[in-house]
């Protein structure tokens, strides 16, 4: 049996004609080339540029800077630390609050409460909206002259500061980002929950286990692969947080984030390669989640 299969395989490999090999090469080659040119080459260019001084316009103006840009960022720039803090808070919030809420929501909906398909859709709705739209929606809610201000009886003159108040704005922004993230996590988890054997749950329930114990001892372990994926997605989404804050503020000075700092420095009117350095720092932060994701997703293939 085995030899016949191997003979077949050998035959099929040997029977790959030149055209076939060319087709295969094109099939893989063109997309790979596209990827490399559009993603990896620019990434490397950015990394290299982070070690230079340049104003981004004339090639002849490039000067070697070594690690000066990095030094400048770490030593002289308080915005950088504010951004790191905000990115860290974003991450912690997503990991500790938003994602668990999504999981909790998924669990409750999965238990078959009435109208769960309807609720699924509602909770997921923010995810299908563009962040440009979300920015407008929440501006209507929160800006001076908006809904929340109106509720409190304040108009534009005495509106309380939301976007600008550093004590409040972090939580507001995280709230809006979570509004979206929770729905996303919920849906992911829901689909995973469907694969948990209901009989197991029933049995444990009859044995007197509380909901929490059922969740912890039966569901969580079964969902292990999904859990890990969700953690990684949470990490990556929080590091990539950019669109929402860009839409609300446009510039990174009030609520700095690493991506916004890149944008402010790498483009526009005051270009400096500090922007490239910020981008590289961001990349370094993303590498750990990315590698974790790769290892988990491909662990069978790697073996």
């Amino acid at each position: 049996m085995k030899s016949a299969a191997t003979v077949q395989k050998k035959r099929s490999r040997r029977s790959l004609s030149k055209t076939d090999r060319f087709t295969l090469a094109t099939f893989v080659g063109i997309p790979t080339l596209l990827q490399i040119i559009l993603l990896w080459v620019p990434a490397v260019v950015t990394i290299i540029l982070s070690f230079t001084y340049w104003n981004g316009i004339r090639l002849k103006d490039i000067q070697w800077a070594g690690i000066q840009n990095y030094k400048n960022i770490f030593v002289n720039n308080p915005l950088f630390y504010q951004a790191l803090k905000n990115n860290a808070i974003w991450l912690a919030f997503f990991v500790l609050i938003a994602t668990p809420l999504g999981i909790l929501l998924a669990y409750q909906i999965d238990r078959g409460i009435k109208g769960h398909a309807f609720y699924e859709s509602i909770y997921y709705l923010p995810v299908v909206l563009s962040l440009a739209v979300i920015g407008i929606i929440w501006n209507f809610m929160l800006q001076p002259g908006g809904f929340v201000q109106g509720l409190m009886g304040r108009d534009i003159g005495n509106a309380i500061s939301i976007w600008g108040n550093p004590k409040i704005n972090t939580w507001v922004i995280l709230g809006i980002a979570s509004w979206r993230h929770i729905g996303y996590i919920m849906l992911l988890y829901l689909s995973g929950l469907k694969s948990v054997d209901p009989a197991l749950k029933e049995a444990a329930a009859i044995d007197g286990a509380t909901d929490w114990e059922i969740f912890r001892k039966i569901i969580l372990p079964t969902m292990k692969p999904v859990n890990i994926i969700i953690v990684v997605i949470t990490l990556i989404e929080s590091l990539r947080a950019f669109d929402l804050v860009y839409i609300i503020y446009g510039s990174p000075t009030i609520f700095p984030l690493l991506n916004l700092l890149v944008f402010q420095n790498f483009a526009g009117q005051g270009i400096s390669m500090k922007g490239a350095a910020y981008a590289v720092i961001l990349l370094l932060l993303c590498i750990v989640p990315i590698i974790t994701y790769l290892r988990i997703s491909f662990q069978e293939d790697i073996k």
Partner: protein
Amino acid sequence: MSTAVVQSAEYRNNQKRKDTFISIFIGIFAFVWIFPILWTVWTSLRPYNDIISYGIFSWPRRLTFDNYINAIREMKIGVYLLNSLLVTVPSVILTLFFGSLVAFVVTRYQYKFNLWILLLFTAGNMLPIVLTYIPVFWMFIWIGELFGNRNLLYNNYGGLILVHVGFQVGFATFVLSSYMKTIPKEISESATIDGANVFRHYWNVILPLLRPALAALSVLMTTWIYNEFFWALVLMSDDSKRPITSALRRLQGQYVTDFNLLAAGAIIAAAPTVIMFFVLRKQFIAGLTLGSTKG
């Protein structure tokens, strides 16, 4: 035995009460959840003058679709929606096509580099945009100059499509390859034995089998690419060529005090993906499941 029965009856009653409580809670929570969207829709249906004269909480004297008509007329929303279409549809098709090609080679044929290609593609999908966007811009200009036309890629739908494809093809490849692994090897082997070359193998044998995955993925991809607004801001200098999501930036600045008009514009911009979500919900969820949970 009897204690178990008694326990389970008590348990079931408890559960019922808990369940009703939770249902109510989730129901209320859902309303709060969707309230901002409802408020925007509400704002879009009220005439501007009403709000100015009577405030935002006033009981409506009349509801109207005027804002929508004005939005389409004044804000040229039709043009922007068309742009979105012109960019999204080719991007999705190309992404799925390329993704399926790579997934096909990598799962159907044994090559040493298979794993590396998969790693490359999957990792590429997760790189932060800001890392690459300026060099991409330079590259587009430089390539354009090589061919004598700066607008070959920059400020050109083609360039924007290319960028979207580049960024999304990694996810498509990953998902399609996991899906393809579930297609039995025998099918491929019998195709080869029947004398099909690689192309026929792909086109006639594998591709039809991918339909469910492609359907699911296409819904997902369309949503993501349609919602994306950043690339067009960088790569399209002609405002009239931008997709609706990018144009919203300009409109938001221009109509900052005209809430109702802006609300109508936002709702119109959101409509395509929302409608698609409700109509194709199953595919949507399937796409997400394929992508994030394995098997």
